[in-house]
């Protein structure tokens, strides 16, 4: 089976008056259907930009992005708007709409495609059940905890039955317990619904826990990729090694302090 998501020679440079910053310097990536693919790296490596190029929240300067048979980078504005409805996205800052209740937040993507009211009700209650927030239906996001907000974010992202879920540091603003719960939820979604998940994170533990494959990004280049096991057992690149060292040390310290590690 060929790769479901293909990224070919992706370049992106941010320009301001004074300088040009090359964020992506030719990224090639292949992700199979139904995978959970982790993209790790230090801050400023270009992880976010890469994933935002997939649904074109950021326009790449050159290169191609394919999802299935659709070349995302060749779509016009109207086609892109339509295709985006089948690409879910969750964010570090959740980005829920404060003016809407939990129910309305999850229903919003469905109303964009003029779903009948009854169908919306069924779908939303099913999603609420999936993320375990049925009792918070009429609450406003302002009253929820970080973990609960991210659950709503996930339910909202899944409302239109996407084939791809982009996760932009979805657990980075959460405490360790919520992080684990959200990761398990993502794994469950991947398992039950077969959604392909692309997950950016700087937390190695998160990638290690649920990703089947991992790519390491540094300075806009992909310096390593492979199965999670290979990368974690035998990192070839210096970033991979440093990353792992830092991670081990941190784990050691927190164990030393009486914790269980992260």
């Amino acid at each position, binding site marked *: 089976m060929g790769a479901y998501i293909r990224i070919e020679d992706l370049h992106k440079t941010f320009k301001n008056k004074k300088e040009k910053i090359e964020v992506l310097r030719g990224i090639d990536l292949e992700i199979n259907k139904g995978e959970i693919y982790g993209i790790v790296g230090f801050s400023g490596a270009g992880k976010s930009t890469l994933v935002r190029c997939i*649904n074109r*929240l950021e326009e790449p300067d050159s290169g191609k992005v394919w999802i299935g048979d659709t070349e995302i980078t060749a779509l016009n504005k109207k086609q892109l*708007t*339509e*295709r*985006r*409805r089948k*690409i879910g*996205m969750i*964010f570090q*800052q959740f*980005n*829920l*709409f*404060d*003016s*809407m209740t939990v129910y309305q937040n999850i229903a*919003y*993507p469905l109303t*964009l495609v003029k779903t009948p009211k009854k169908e919306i009700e069924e779908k939303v209650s099913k999603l609420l059940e999936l993320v375990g927030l049925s009792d918070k239906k009429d*609450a*406003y*996001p*302002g*009253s929820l905890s970080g973990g609960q907000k991210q659950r709503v974010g996930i339910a*909202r*992202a899944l409302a*239109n039955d996407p084939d791809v879920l*982009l996760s932009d540091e979805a657990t980075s603003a959460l405490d360790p317990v919520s992080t684990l719960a959200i990761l398990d939820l993502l794994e469950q979604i991947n398992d039950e619904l077969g959604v392909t998940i692309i997950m950016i994170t700087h937390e190695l533990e998160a990638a290690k826990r649920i990703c089947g494959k991992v790519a390491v990004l540094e300075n806009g280049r992909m310096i390593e990729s492979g199965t999670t096991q290979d990368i974690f057992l035998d990192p070839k690149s210096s970033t991979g090694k440093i990353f792992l060292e830092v991670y081990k040390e941190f784990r050691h310290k927190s164990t030393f302090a009486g914790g269980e590690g992260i």
Partner: protein
Amino acid sequence: MSFLKYPFWDVVKHAFSKEVWDTLWPAVWDTLYMVVLSAVITLVLGVLLGIGLSVISKDGVRPIPVLNETASTIVNCLRSLPQMIMIIVTLPLARMLLGQSYGVNACIIALAASCIPMYARLVQGAIVEIPKGKIEAAKAMGSSSAAIVFRIMLPEAIPSIIRGFTVALIGIISMTALAGSFGAGGIGDIAVRFGFNRFYHDMLIASVLVLIVMVEIAQIFGDLFSNLILRKRHLI
């Protein structure tokens, strides 16, 4: 009654007499009429203009650079005129449109010309302050530009838009008082004709009190509405 002839407290007491208020009440109604009408016009057109400005701005949902520059320049020009100058400038316009350059209705043109651009900028500010991530989330879900503007931006910014309207409303009240001295009538007219020209200081005190009460009411209700929404959303 003037401070020049009567003791201070007598003048203050007389400010609450029937004699003073018989003259003042019609003026209060004139002022309220001007304020309410201008406020409605400012609210509707200000919100529309504010949304328009933020939509076509450089970082907006649908950037149109040429139109944005033009509209911004016009808004800035209107905003750079002090209220008094604006009243004088629009007098000929009022004569052209309404046939007379004095009276309650004539001043509404000046009020609108001054307050719409001011309020539009406040609305624009409220919309710009919405965290960018929320707009991006809406885009990522495949929202049309219209859906982003009317279903995300406006509802998210409503508390700030209401706060801005309180500021604009108080501006309108102060400007009606000013317009009074240019033939618009109302409380400003009373304050100038009686309080300033004829030393009726009791009238002056009563006019000031009415203005304070009006501004106070505007502020209290503005805060109340905006806080109600924020509290409902658990944001305060």
